[in-house]
């Protein structure tokens, strides 16, 4: 807009230009101020947590705007060892990685077949999966939990200690299963956009159906696979409702561990350990985000399903 009004000679439209000449400038300043204020409202609390994790106990009383006096790293030692955040970190890594492996192992072939093969019931499968997009996990955590308890009860002779509850691998399986609709939806759309000529050529060369899928189509679908991994990673890593329900025992994930620290802090006002714990949870995600932000944002722009 400014570009156009400045490239035109002023004498051209004196009547329309003059009265608004000042308003856009102050308006522009105001909008900039608002954008900056919003960005600060997001950046400041996050940065404040990072800084506060270095404060000693006495520094939390008084003004929140003082900088930490030194590097009080004891908070981190407390969080990692005393609050078991180190151990929870490993559980989270295990659960997330296994969940991603499982969801890709079952979703890639299914998405490929749905995109490329005619078979009876294909329409039905597609509709069922589409409906699954609207079933949020939060609605069905309780029935899933009770179902697993039932299974444990049925198998009490084989596994007296229980197998399904408090098992990180089962948690991964539930993560994978509940993200199948979203994953297949994105992958199918991408597979459909790849021209069939590649497969025709590979088939002429005598490649088997399996080989065509794995060696021809999978590499071409890499952008979609990356997008799916990103979104599923965030969903698994950040979840706490399912983890809280399915791992009630000692082995917790990072988010549940943080929730415990958070609840304990309300009672004991042990801020340092809580903020250190938060930094341990935030930093890996923030680093990942910094590296892949473009791809993540493109993913939303194209598929945009996760709310």
């Amino acid at each position, binding site marked *: 807009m400014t570009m156009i009004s400045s490239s035109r000679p002023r004498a051209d439209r004196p009547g329309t230009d003059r009265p608004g000449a000042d308003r856009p400038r102050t308006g522009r300043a105001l909008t900039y101020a608002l954008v900056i204020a919003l960005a600060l409202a997001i950046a400041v609390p996050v940065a404040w947590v990072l800084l506060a994790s270095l404060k000693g106990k006495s520094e939390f009383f008084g003004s929140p705007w003082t900088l930490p006096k030194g590097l009080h790293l004891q908070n981190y030692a407390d969080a990692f060892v005393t609050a078991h955040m180190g151990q929870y970190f490993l559980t989270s890594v295990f659960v997330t990685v296994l969940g991603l492996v499982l969801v890709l192992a079952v979703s890639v072939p299914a998405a490929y077949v749905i995109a490329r093969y005619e078979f009876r019931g294909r329409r039905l499968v597609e509709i069922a999966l589409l409906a699954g997009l609207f079933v949020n996990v939060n609605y069905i955590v309780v029935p899933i939990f009770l*179902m697993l308890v039932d299974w444990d009860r049925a198998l009490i002779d084989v596994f007296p200690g229980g197998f399904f509850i408090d098992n990180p691998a089962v948690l991964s399986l539930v993560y994978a*299963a509940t993200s199948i*609709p979203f994953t297949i939806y994105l992958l199918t759309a991408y597979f459909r956009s790849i021209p*069939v000529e590649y497969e025709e050529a590979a088939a002429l060369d005598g490649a088997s159906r399996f080989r065509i899928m794995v060696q021809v189509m999978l590499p071409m679908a890499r952008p979609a696979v990356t997008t799916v991994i990103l979104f599923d990673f965030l969903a698994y890593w950040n979840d706490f409702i399912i983890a809280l329900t399915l791992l009630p025992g000692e082995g917790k994930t990072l988010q549940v561990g943080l929730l415990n620290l958070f609840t304990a802090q309300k009672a004991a006002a042990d801020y340092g350990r809580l903020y250190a714990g938060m930094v341990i949870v935030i930093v890996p995600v923030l680093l990942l985000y910094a590296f892949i932000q473009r791809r993540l944002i493109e993913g939303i722009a194209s598929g945009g399903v996760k709310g």
Partner: protein
Amino acid sequence: MTTLSTPPPGSTNRTSEQAPPDGSSRRGARSPAHRRGNTGFVLACLLPALVLFAVFMVIPTVNVFRTSLYTWGGFSPDKRFVGLDNFRHLLDDEQFVRAFQNTVALLVVVTVVTMGLGLFLAAIMTRQRLRGRNLYRFVLYIPNVLSVVVIAAIFSAVYDQKNGLLNGTLRLLSLDGLQQVWLGNQKLVLYSVAIAMVWQSLGYYMVLYMAGMSSIPEELYEASALDGACATRQFFAITLPLIWQSLRTTLTFFVMSAVNLSFVLVRAMTGGGPDGSSDVLLNYMYKQAYTNSSYGYGMAIGVVIFAFSFLVSLLVSRATRREPLQF
């Protein structure tokens, strides 16, 4: 084979000139591999995903509906069919009504504020050549990658009564009178939750709207600028009508996040308190199903949530239907 796996994107019509050797036309088949004997391959590819989907999504969903017709503690074998009794009790349950009202209030407030700010930011970022806009986009999107527990903890640091950022700042500015117990005041707590929800999702919607706006051709703006339209008028006359479809899509997302995000946030931040004043539907369902062990009753709440989010999405989508505009 090896060259095929990484072909240049432009070379797609090389093989389309060749006729398939068996003479079958490509029209009917979706793929060259479409011959007899595919059933085994299709099943092998499809079954693992379908089994997992059925066991962990379809069956639990069906169970929500089925057990809403029973009184059942969840663990005991004592299970009694009561028909629609659970739903009838819901109407007299003040806590439930309150949770419902809170959910609707959050839906309205968060949608209006987030959508307004998101559209505003997206318009600024795409239309005005704002300096450092990649940095702003980066920062504004950060909350979306953080977990809800982290966000709850951040906001408890902001809202903390004695040493929190908000009250501390007010004290610094000698505005002590404005200090509040942000999460302990029954009248304020819902707004405190709403602010956290807006904080969390603003960047996400901004990015979605930016994607829609960036595809609007520049000529439209140039032409209207020649006619003397100012930026505000351009926004309402050009931008808004042309991204109407993505606005409608996000309305569905807003409904879902009002139900789900509000629950996870409330669960981590306030637990529904003080005294149920920040309770939301899913949180109340959780409480009934677990803490109170009225599993059947909890699932009746679940059914209401399903119906509510489905109906609202449907209504909103009907009410906002317009002829899609071409550009």
